């Protein structure tokens, strides 16, 4: 092997990603950071002063706390259940490989393969008691209209259900990949030592796929904080019963395009970036996502 050529090909292979990262990630993020410190003349209250005026205005906004609270509620309901389902099913399928396992995997993968918007439209039909195939559930709770089903206090559960439905299949494939990565010798050794299937799953496989679980957690937390499409669709179909500034990202959008306060919108985006980055660092270090994990 020619040692000199390896770095070059590596650069070549990663260059499309790096260019995209710069154009769609680093440069706009940098611009947002700069913009968030520029004096902004939105239509709204000219709150705050000094370098952090935009931040001050955003932090004291009456919708700020509730937006983060909403996202927090969704994450608390959604993530634990989601991780248990994905990891549990992946372990189960890995335990009993074969045609059944593969077909189940394929069926679970289907919703994720549909385009996002098509999925939400499907969900709207599922949620609307006038047309839903599972309307007996809503009727059981005495709910006869979409506004009643999708009332604000139900939204965390509805979004959690949506996200689990959409994501499970795709993430099983990824975690399954992690499980396939475990050398057969390790599993054979465990069997010879007399470990039961349960013990192998919990004591051998689970620790070995920790980086994959970390990755699963990280990406989905990031997604949770960026919720935009789902709540804004819900806001439209409920004729505004769900607030159009339900999530931080939606609030940022409102700042930019209703209040024409780009400084405030940038400040809010930077806050989101900071929050997800801190969580990212914690998750990466805890799960040994970028190293060690493969040993």
């Amino acid at each position: 092997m020619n040692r000199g050529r390896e770095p070059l090909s590596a650069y070549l292979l990663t260059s499309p990603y790096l260019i995209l990262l710069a154009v769609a990630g680093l440069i706009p993020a940098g611009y947002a950071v700069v913009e968030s410190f520029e004096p902004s003349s939105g239509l709204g209250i000219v709150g705050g002063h000094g370098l952090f005026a935009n931040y001050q205005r955003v932090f004291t906004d009456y919708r700020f706390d509730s937006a983060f609270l909403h996202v927090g509620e969704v994450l608390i309901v959604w993530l634990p259940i989601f991780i248990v389902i994905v990891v549990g099913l992946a372990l189960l399928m890995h335990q009993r490989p074969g045609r059944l396992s593969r077909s189940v995997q394929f069926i679970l993968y289907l919703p994720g393969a549909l385009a996002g918007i098509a999925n939400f439209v499907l969900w709207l039909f599922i949620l609307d008691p006038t047309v839903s195939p599972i309307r007996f559930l809503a009727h059981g709770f005495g709910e006869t209209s979409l506004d009643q089903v999708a009332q604000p206090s139900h939204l965390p559960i509805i979004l959690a259900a949506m996200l689990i439905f959409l994501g499970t299949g795709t993430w099983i494939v990824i975690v399954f990949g992690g499980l396939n990565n475990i050398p057969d010798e390790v599993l054979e050794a465990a069997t010879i030592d007399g470990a039961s299937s349960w013990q192998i799953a919990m004591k051998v496989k689970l620790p070995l796929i920790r980086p994959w679980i970390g990755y699963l957690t990280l990406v989905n937390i990031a997604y949770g904080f960026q919720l935009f499409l789902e709540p804004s669709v819900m806001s439209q179909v409920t004729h505004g019963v769900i607030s159009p500034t339900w999530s931080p990202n939606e609030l940022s959008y409102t700042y930019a395009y209703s209040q024409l306060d780009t400084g405030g919108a940038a400040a809010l985006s930077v806050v989101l970036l900071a929050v997800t980055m801190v969580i990212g660092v914690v998750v990466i270090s805890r799960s040994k996502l970028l190293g060690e994990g493969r040993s």
Partner: protein
Amino acid sequence: MREQHRRARWVAAIVAATSVLAAVSASGANAAKPAVKAGSGGSITILADTTREPAIKAFEKANPSIKVTIETYANTGNNGIEQKFALYNQAGSGWPDVFFSNGNDLAWASNSKINYTENLGSSVPESIQKGFGNNLSVCEVGGKLMCLPNDLGQVVLWYNATLFKQWGYSPPKTWQQYESLSLQIAKDHPGYFTGLAGDVNAPNRYLWPSGCPVSTLVAKMTVKINVNAPSCTRVENMLQTLLNAKVVSPIGLFDTDAPTQVGAKLVMTPGASWYGQFIFEADFKVPAHQITASLPLHWAGEKAGTGAEGGGLWMVSRHATGKNLAAAIKAVQFLTTNHKLLTSNVTFPAYGPAQNAWLAGLGRTGYFADFPQLKHALKTAASEIRTDTNWTQYNPGNIWSQTVTAALSSGQSLSSGWSTFGTQLVQQAQSFGYKVQK
């Protein structure tokens, strides 16, 4: 396979993460750049909802020398259209020469930041301006005429004449009579309804006629809001009583279950001029010769005054110049005053001289009961819309949905959403830069 997935996920996550940032940064600078002239020779671009398309085509046909490009947005709503205008300002080009929308959009289109609208005060003849009467006030922003009104959503009292006759009732004249008749109906004919409270239009049909200040402009950027004023609390009390009696439904007019839950059981309701064809006939499928309307309700001892649900208007771009500007002004005049066109429109014309012809057309549909009374009600209500409720950049209807409708749909009382309605009105008004008075 795994790595690919990983990469794809990362790229997707990063693209998603940064798209909002990118969008935000795209509208960075604030000041609008000098206008770039649209193509000369009297060609104009008109941005309107899909409902307006036939009218624009009619203008095009009547004026073959003017080249018209039509851009449409869905008539179910134009959320985010303000974003387009922010971006046009940023780019310094791209504005439509004529823009059809509603009062809420006029509020931002005419503000100092978007600053899109042309003052039509001197270019539209006095005689035509007079034809709009009272209703021209919708378009007056800071003493300038920033649009021409297209249609009116004046609120009248709709009722089912067949059932009223059968039950021996006559339509109420005051809100107090409306309340007592509603309670009577609740008692004698349970299961029937006399109104709905859970939609974005509810403040316009209940609060506006009462003079309840939720968006009363006292100066250009100063607004009066006080949901604890007697003119508000009397509506709150009335609606709460009627909701308790289950004769006013907590759901909304446009909810998907409204036709089945309320539908033909709606025996009476205050409602806009377009309820007859759009709600009773199209949505609720009430058979012909049953529905009519009487004069708008007023509060006993007070002078007549009503509200409006919707009402479109036409704005002209101040970025248009020369022949284009002339063509744009010609277009909005045609679209708002041409008799033949207005008669074929689906909505009640704001232009007075065209109203009789339009009403004659409505009569020819043969759908309504007691048409002379309906005609009189619509005509009278058209000149009685109160001017102390104004269209602002925040929409009280949306805030009503988030607070009052949200409370109702989760089984709580109207009153429990009422104070949040009040606080959020103030907070949202302030977030758009309005000074708030009590």
